[in-house]
C-alpha cells in the first residue's frame, strides 16, 4: 500500500511535493473502506475463537468432575440398563404391533368411531360447558337465557353433524346410528355413545383373541423386563450418592473462582486497607476441599455386586434371545422384531465387556484436554441443562445437518440442472423471460416464510399422504412427526434450486457458442449437443454451482429451526430409509435455539460458539472448493 501511495505522488504543487495531498487523503479514505471487509472477516474469526476456545478447558473440567464424583462409573451400568429398557420397549412394540395388526379391522373401526365422536365433542364442547357451568342461567329469572343457550347448543350440534369425519371402515347403518345417537344426545350426558363403547369392547375382545397364541412371547418379554430390576435399583442407589458428591465439587469450583476474582481485585487495588480487606475475603472464601474419597470408596465397594448383576443380566438376556420367536406375521411387527434381534448381540457384547470396564475403572485417571476434544467431535450425545451430566457431542447435530442436506440436494440437483439445460438450450426467448424471473423470485422469498409454509402447510400435507393406504410401501410411512428431516429437506431443496439453477445456467452460458455450433454442424441433434458437448464443457461450473448450493443448505437456519423437528438424537438407522422421516436437530438450529437462553461465559455458551466455528470452517471449505472450480472453468 505504501508503495502505491508514493508512486502516485507527482511533482508540481507544493502539497504534492511534500507527499501529502487532498487527493491522497481521499484515496486513503477509500482504501480504508476497502480494508473494512478484511477487518470484519478478522473480527469474525477472532471473536468466534475468543468465545469458543475457552470451551475445551471448561469441558475438560466438567468431564473431570464427572469422573472424580463417580458419575462415569455409574454410567457404565446405567448405559446397559438403558439399552435393556430400549430392547424391552422394542419387544413390547413388536408384540403390540402383532396383536394390533391382527386386529387391525377392529382397531380402525374403533378409532374412526371415536375420532368422529371426539371431533363432535370438540366442536360443541364450549357451548355445552356454558349450559352446564353457568350459574347465572340456573337462577329463575334467567329462563330466557337458558333457552338461548340451548338454542345455541342445538345450532352448534347441527353444524358439527353436517360434515362428520369420514369412516370408511364402518357400515352405513353403523355410521347413521352413531350420528343419530350424537344428535339425540342430551347436553349433560357424560358416557360414551353406545356404538363407540361397543366398538371399543369389540377391539378389546379381538386383542385378547389374538394375544392368546402369543402367550409364550408375552412371558418371555415380562421375564426379560424383570431381569433388569436388580441392576436398576443398585444404579438408583449409586446415582443418589454420586449426585451429592458432584454438587459439592461444583460448589467448591464456584467458590474457588470467586476467590481468584477477589485476589485479582486485591492485586489491582491501590488502597492498602481495601487490599487487606479483599485479601481477607479471599482467604475466607478458600473452600474446604470436598471429601470425595469416602463416598468413592463406598462406590468402589459395590464393584463386585455390579459385576455379579451384569453377569446375571447377561445370562437372562442370552436365554431370552433363544426364546423370542424368529419372526412374526405382521409386517410392522416383523420389522421391529428384526431390529430387536439385530440389536441383541450388540447388547450381549456390551454386557460381556461391562465387568472388565467396571473393574478397570479408576477415579484417579487424569482427564487430558484431548479427551474433551474427542468427546466433542465424536460424542453421540448433546445433553444440556440436565441434572445428571451435560454432554456436548456434535455428532447428532452434524448428522442431522448432513441428512437434511442430502435430501435437499438429491431433489435440487437433478431438478435445477434439468431446468438450467432446458432454459439455456431448448427454451424460446419468451419462455426464458417467463421462467428466469420467477425462479429468481423464489430466491427472494425469506427463509422464515418458507419455514412457516413448512410448518402449517407442507408438514400437514405430508402426514396426510403418509397415512394413505396407497403409499404404505414407502419406508418410514406412516410418519410419526410431521416435522422431520424429509420435510426440512424438501423446503431447503426449494430454497437451493434458484441458487444452483442460476449458477449452472451461467456456466452453460459461458460455454463458447462455437462449441454448440460446431456440434450441430457435424449433425448432432439438439439433445446430443446438450448432453455431450455443453455439459462436459461447463462441468466445472456446474460442480461449483452444486457446491455453492450445498454451502447454502448447510448454513440455512430458519427453515431447519422451524421444520426439522428439533429432536437432538441421532436418527435410528435400523429403520433403513425410514430414518429420513424422523425429526432431528442441526448445527445452525442449535445455535439459534439455545444462544438466547444460556448464561454468558458458561461452558454451554462456549460450546455454541465452537459449533459456530465448525459451521464457519465447513462452509468456508465448501466455498473455497467451489471457487477453485469456478476459476478452473474460467481458464
Amino acid at each position, binding site marked *: 500500500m505504501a508503495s502505491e501511495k508514493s508512486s502516485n505522488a507527482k511533482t508540481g504543487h507544493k502539497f504534492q511535493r511534500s507527499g501529502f495531498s487532498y487527493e491522497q487523503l481521499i484515496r486513503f479514505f477509500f482504501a480504508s473502506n476497502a480494508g*473494512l471487509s478484511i477487518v470484519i472477516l478478522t473480527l469474525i474469526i477472532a471473536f468466534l475463537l475468543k468465545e469458543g476456545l475457552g470451551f475445551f478447558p471448561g469441558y475438560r473440567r466438567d468431564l473431570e468432575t464427572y469422573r472424580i464424583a463417580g458419575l462415569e462409573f455409574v454410567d457404565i451400568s446405567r448405559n446397559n440398563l438403558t439399552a435393556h429398557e430400549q430392547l424391552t420397549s422394542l419387544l413390547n412394540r413388536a408384540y403390540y404391533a402383532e396383536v394390533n395388526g391382527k386386529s387391525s379391522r377392529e382397531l380402525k373401526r374403533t378409532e374412526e368411531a371415536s375420532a368422529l365422536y371426539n371431533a363432535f365433542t370438540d366442536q360443541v364442547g364450549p357451548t355445552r360447558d356454558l349450559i352446564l357451568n353457568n350459574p347465572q342461567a340456573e337462577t329463575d329469572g334467567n329462563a330466557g337465557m337458558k333457552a338461548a343457550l340451548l338454542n345455541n347448543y342445538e345450532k352448534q350440534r347441527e353444524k358439527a353433524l353436517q360434515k362428520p369425519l369420514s369412516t370408511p371402515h364402518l357400515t352405513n347403518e353403523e355410521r347413521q346410528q352413531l350420528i343419530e345417537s350424537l344428535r339425540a344426545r342430551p347436553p349433560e350426558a357424560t358416557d360414551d355413545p353406545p356404538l363407540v363403547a361397543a366398538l371399543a369392547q369389540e377391539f378389546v375382545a379381538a386383542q385378547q383373541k389374538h394375544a392368546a397364541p402369543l402367550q409364550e412371547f408375552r412371558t418371555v418379554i415380562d421375564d426379560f423386563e424383570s431381569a433388569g430390576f436388580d441392576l436398576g435399583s443398585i444404579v438408583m442407589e449409586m446415582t443418589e450418592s454420586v449426585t451429592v458428591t458432584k454438587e459439592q465439587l461444583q460448589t467448591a469450583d464456584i467458590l474457588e473462582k470467586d476467590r481468584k476474582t477477589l485476589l485479582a481485585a486485591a492485586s489491582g487495588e491501590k488502597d492498602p486497607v481495601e487490599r487487606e480487606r479483599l485479601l481477607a475475603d479471599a482467604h475466607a472464601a478458600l473452600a474446604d476441599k470436598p471429601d470425595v474419597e469416602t463416598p468413592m470408596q463406598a462406590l468402589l465397594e459395590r464393584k463386585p455386586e455390579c459385576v455379579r448383576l451384569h453377569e446375571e443380566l447377561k445370562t437372562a438376556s442370552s436365554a431370552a434371545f433363544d426364546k423370542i420367536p424368529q419372526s412374526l406375521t405382521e409386517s410392522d411387527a416383523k420389522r421391529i422384531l428384526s431390529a430387536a434381534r439385530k440389536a441383541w448381540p450388540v447388547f450381549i457384547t456390551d454386557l460381556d465387556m461391562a465387568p472388565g470396564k467396571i473393574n478397570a475403572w479408576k477415579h484417579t485417571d487424569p482427564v487430558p484436554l484431548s479427551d474433551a476434544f474427542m468427546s466433542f467431535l465424536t460424542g453421540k450425545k448433546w445433553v444440556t441443562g440436565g441434572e445428571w451430566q451435560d454432554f456436548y457431542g456434535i455428532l447428532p447435530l452434524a448428522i442431522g445437518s448432513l441428512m437434511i442436506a442430502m435430501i435437499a440436494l438429491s431433489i435440487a440437483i437433478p431438478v435445477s440442472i434439468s431446468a438450467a439445460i432446458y432454459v439455456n438450450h431448448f427454451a424460446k426467448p419468451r419462455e426464458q423471460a417467463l421462467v428466469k424471473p420467477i425462479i429468481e423470485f423464489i430466491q427472494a422469498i425469506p427463509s*422464515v416464510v418458507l419455514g412457516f409454509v413448512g410448518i402449517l402447510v407442507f408438514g400437514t400435507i405430508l402426514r396426510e399422504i403418509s397415512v394413505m393406504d396407497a403409499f404404505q410401501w414407502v419406508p418410514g410411512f406412516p410418519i410419526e412427526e410431521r416435522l422431520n428431516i424429509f420435510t426440512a429437506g424438501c423446503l431447503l431443496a426449494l430454497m437451493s434450486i434458484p441458487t444452483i439453477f442460476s449458477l449452472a445456467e451461467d456456466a452453460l452460458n459461458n460455454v463458447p457458442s462455437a462449441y454448440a455450433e460446431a456440434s450441430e454442424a457435424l449433425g448432432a441433434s439438439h439433445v446430443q449437443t446438450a448432453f455431450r458437448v455443453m455439459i462436459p464443457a461447463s462441468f466445472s461450473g456446474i460442480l461449483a454451482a452444486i457446491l455453492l448450493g450445498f454451502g447454502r443448505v448447510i448454513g440455512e437456519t430458519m427453515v431447519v429451526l422451524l421444520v426439522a423437528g428439533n429432536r437432538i438424537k441421532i436418527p435410528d438407522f435400523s429403520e433403513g430409509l425410514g430414518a429420513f422421516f424422523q425429526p432431528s436437530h442441526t448445527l445452525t438450529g442449535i*445455535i439459534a435455539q439455545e444462544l438466547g437462553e444460556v448464561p454468558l461465559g458458561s461452558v454451554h455458551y462456549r460450546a455454541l460458539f465452537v459449533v459456530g466455528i465448525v459451521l464457519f470452517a465447513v462452509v468456508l471449505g465448501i466455498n473455497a472448493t467451489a471457487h477453485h472450480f469456478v476459476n478452473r472453468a474460467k481458464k
Partner: protein
Amino acid sequence: MIDPEILIRKGMPRGYFKDIFVRLALGSVTYLILIIALLLFARIIIDGAPAIFSTKFPFVDIEFLTAKNETLHVFDDAEGTRHQLPASKYNEYLDAHPGATIYNEKTFSYSGGGIAGPIAGTALLTLGAIILALFFGVSAAIYLAEYAKQSPFIHAVRLAILNLAGIPSIVFGLFGFSVFVLAVPVITNTPSDRSLLVIPLLINDFALSFQGWNSSLMAGCATLACMILPVIITASEESLRAVPQGFRDASLAMGATRWQTIRKCVLPYSMPGILTSSLLAITRVAGETAPIMFTAAVAAKDDFPWEGLSNPFDILSSQVQALPYHIYTLAARIPNSEFTQRAQYGSVLVFLILVAVLSFGSMLLRAKLRAKLKW
C-alpha cells in the same frame, strides 16, 4: 453422378422421438418448479387475504397494518356469543360490562391487534443497515474499481469479500452478538462489570468502556450491514466498471483530478445501477431472521420504537420488533389454532407482498436501466 436428393434424408431423423422425449422431460421439470412456487404463493394469498383485505372500501384492513401488536383474548359472554378482542379492547369491554362473567376464556400471545410494530422495526433495521452498507460498500467499490492496481492488499480484500459472502447468517448472528452486543466501545460514566477494557477519558468520570451496545437497533443494523456488505461492494463495483473508460479519460484529459472525475463523471452514471442492486440487498436484509435474533429483535413490545424516548438518539439503543422475527414467533412459539390464523397468515402475506414489490421493482428498474443506458 449421385442425385443430391438421395443425400438429403427423408422423413424424421434418427432419434427424433428420443429428442422430443428428453425435451419434454426437461421442460416439464422446469415448469414443475414454477407450478410448485405458484401453488405456494396461491396458498399463502388465499389463506392470508381474509386477514388483510376486506370487501368494503378501502378494501384493505387498515387496522391490521396500523395497530400495535397485542395479546388476543377469546371468550364467550353469558349469552354464548363469541368475542375475539385484543388486550386493550378486552380491558375496555371489562370496564364497560362491570360484573359480567365470561366463559371459556383463552389467550393467544402476539396474535391480537395489528403488525405495525414489527413493520416499523423492520423498516428501521433495513434503513439503518442499508445506509451503513451503502456508505462503506460504495466507498470500497470506488477504491476497487477506480484506484486499485494489482497488489497483495487488493488480493486480500477480494478474498475477504468472497469469504464474507459465503458465511451463514447464523454465524453473522454469533458475530454480531459477541462483537456489537458485548464488545464494542461506548462512552459511559458507569462501566459495566463485564466490560473487556475500560479506558478513562479524564473528563467527569467518563470512560471508554468496551462493553457493547446490548441488544439494540444499532447492534442489529451493524450486524445486517456487515452481512450485506459483500453484496453491495460486488454490485457497486460492477456498476462502476460499466461506465465506459472514455468518460474517465476525457475528464482526466481536461485536467480534472481523480476525485473530480469520479464525482462528476463516474458516480452519476453508475448511481442508478448501484441503487437498483441495493434494492435487492434490501429484500435480503428485510428477510433475515438469524442475525437479528440475538442482536436487536424482541418478541413483544408495547410501544412503537419512537415512543417514550427521552431523547431521539435513544431509538438507536432500544430493542425493536421485526416482521421476520414476529413470523418466527407466531409459527414456532404459539400453538396453532383458528384464532391465530389471522395474525399468522396475515403477517406472512404482508411480508411476502413487501418482498415481492421490492424484488419486482428491482427487476423492472434493471430492465429499464439496461434499455436506457447504452453507450
